[in-house]
């Protein structure tokens, strides 16, 4: 093929030309070969820096080469002790429990959802001392059926938390709720929850509000350890 390749289609009769069959191959250039330029010195320098960084990183962040040390903070792991030192602030603990268990219904702003989940901010159940025994029991066994909070009525299903949360955790979340969103009420102690559990006994059915209203105040409970002041 001595002529320059043409682009336009020509109206040639369809004949199979052996030369045509090889046209793409014929116009190919040589098979690829290697050149032998040396590796640039500056490139070697860059690589030395990268290798040095790699070595430094491996030496610093290897977590002792131990598989019990997960990426990130040293978290309590299999075989490691997790007990935090010192007393835990109930409000901090309560906020954690709240965000892990309550927020999806009662919301982060404590306002609940109209018609579905009652508010906790400014709620008479949370603030009024006569409802203290009631809210402890609601947390333990849950609540069903119609209830009126702040003038609006709700008819839902609050699940029980007696099995899932310990006394300390229930006390903490109640304490948190009672001082958040403008609420001001006294903290609840784990001992009070323990006493409420004992008083509830073997019952496992959720409450209805009429039954709860019949329950009077709990006997005061001796506190075993001083309750730390909730931080604002």
């Amino acid at each position, binding site marked *: 093929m*001595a002529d*320059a*390749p*043409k*682009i*336009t*289609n*020509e*109206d040639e009769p*369809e004949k199979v030309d052996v030369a*045509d*069959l*090889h*046209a*793409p*191959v*014929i*116009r*190919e*250039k*040589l*098979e*690829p*070969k*290697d*050149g*032998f*330029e*040396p*590796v*640039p010195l500056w*490139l*070697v320098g*860059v*690589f030395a820096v*990268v*290798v040095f*960084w*790699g070595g430094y*990183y*491996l030496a610093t*962040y*290897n*977590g*002792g*080469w*131990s*598989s*019990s*040390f*997960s*990426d*990130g903070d040293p978290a309590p792991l299999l075989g490691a002790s997790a007990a935090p030192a010192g007393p835990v602030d109930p409000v901090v603990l309560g906020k954690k429990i*709240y*965000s892990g268990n309550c*927020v*999806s219904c009662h*919301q*982060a702003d404590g306002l609940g959802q109209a018609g579905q989940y009652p508010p906790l901010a400014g709620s008479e159940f949370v603030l009024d001392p006569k409802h203290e025994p009631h809210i402890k029991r609601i947390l333990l066994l849950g609540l069903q059926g119609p209830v009126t909070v702040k003038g609006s009525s709700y008819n839902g299903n609050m699940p029980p938390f007696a099995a899932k949360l310990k006394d300390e955790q229930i006390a903490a979340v109640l304490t948190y709720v009672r001082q958040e969103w403008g609420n001001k009420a006294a903290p609840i102690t784990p001992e009070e929850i323990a006493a409420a559990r004992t008083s509830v006994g073997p019952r496992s059915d959720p409450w209805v509000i009429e039954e709860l209203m019949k329950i009077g105040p709990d006997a005061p409970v001796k506190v075993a350890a001083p309750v730390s002041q909730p931080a604002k």
Partner: protein
Amino acid sequence: MSLTAEETSHAHDRLDPKSFGEQHNESELLGMRSKIDESCRWPCLVFFATGTAWLVVGSLLAMMASIKLHSPEFLAQHAWLTFGRVRPAHLDTVVFGWASLTGIGTSLWLMCRLCRTPLRYPSMLVMAAVIWNIGTLAGTIAVLAGESNSIEYLEFPYYATFMLFIAFAIVAVWAIFTFGQRQEGHVYVSQWYLFGALFWFPWLYATVQLLEIAGLVKGVAQESVHWWFGHNVLGLWFTPIGIATIYYLIPKVIGRPIYSYYLSILGFWSLALFYNWAGAHHLIGGPVPQWLVTCSIVGSVMMIIPVTTTAINHHMTARKHLELLRYSPTLRFIVFGAMSYTIVSFQGSAMSIKAFNEPFHFTHHTIAHAHLGLYAFYSMVMFGAMYYIVPRLTGREWASSKLIRLHFWMVSIGITLYFVGLTLGGIIQGFELNQASVPYNEVVGQHGLWNGTKLFFEGFKEQNGAVKFMAIVHDSIPWLLSRSVAGTMMTIGHLAFGTLLLINLTGWGRRRVGPTLFRADDERYHAAMGEEQDWTVPPQDEQGAHI
């Protein structure tokens, strides 16, 4: 990095075909090339045609998945079209259908050309292609039917993976046999990469199937195996095929040798050593040992070495001949792919560093990165390879320069829009996920695009207000929409390419004479292509020495 004294004294001999153990001159090679191409015809075309068919299927599945993310009611009534099934179906069809089939097709042709030996036992390879296709089809239908195990990249049930394995074994045996038959003493750099890919892939696939899918390993160790596989299927299966193709086609189209053999060696071994440690960067922050994550971060950052090396090698080879990009479809797609490889790898190294990873892990940013790699690098290289190889197998030139131009511009603008849109969306999503001083909340936020963008520009500073989760979802919708627009463009490009391939394979329409270029051949083209080759005289280099 340099050769021994003995090797150096023979260095220039390496440019002499005789020193390669080859007894032919170029005119004999010409005849052999035709024979090789003729022998490759059926197996390669079956791999290419079925691969392209999967590309079209995968593009349609991709469009469905993309639209569902900003319009969740789209086609939502049926279980087999739910997002959670369409998305893995898309992934598996493009990875095991499009990318693997065209990769194998290209590898077969490259192996034969580089070993200077015709393809033997073509029916074996056609059978392998058929089995692979049946396996992919069975697997895809299974995923849509709800049989997926939702382990990313490995969703196919055992009967489909078994078929893929058998098909691959046939190809691997053929490759070893062909390599043993090679007529060429010198093993060119592309062959190292292809050899590596053919060896690594079955080891990867077998290990993950046994340890994770068959459940020999329990617990979070599975995820280490999973992402070792997931990352290596990109780094040690697709990347070597892509790089091998670039190493062959750039010097081939422009007619110059590769810049530096030493850079080739450095690039290959550093890739082999570092890439396979990178997998656990998918698990940064996760419940896995810190040493594992640290090794992966180091492996990922060390990838700077092979990537820079390869980029320099390719760039210095091509840099005086870039005017050919105006004309050659092959070169344009290949160079686009090669540049994307450099960018995506540097991005990957950066993304492994904890300062980047902490905000952007779990976001759309990762998806943008994945597409930059598998599409802007690998798929564009495969397009370039097919534009070069198919006319040599069928004897027919591409029918329409207009369609090639449509293909190129649609997919290149499409993938650019895809990458930019989802990267920005992912960055905004990541920064917003990090602003979390109040808990999860279900109320739709009033955040909007402007506030999200403000957060982006304000960077890592602590913000007073937290961003509610639903607001984050809301803010990512415009970017998800841009992905659908980009995907539409890419799909149009794929349909254009599919049409071109169909016309070429069937021979419909008039036959063109001469190469199908982006623009009309003119004086600049001839200047760029250099002198006509006179094949009766052995070729010479600039000093007049025979090369």
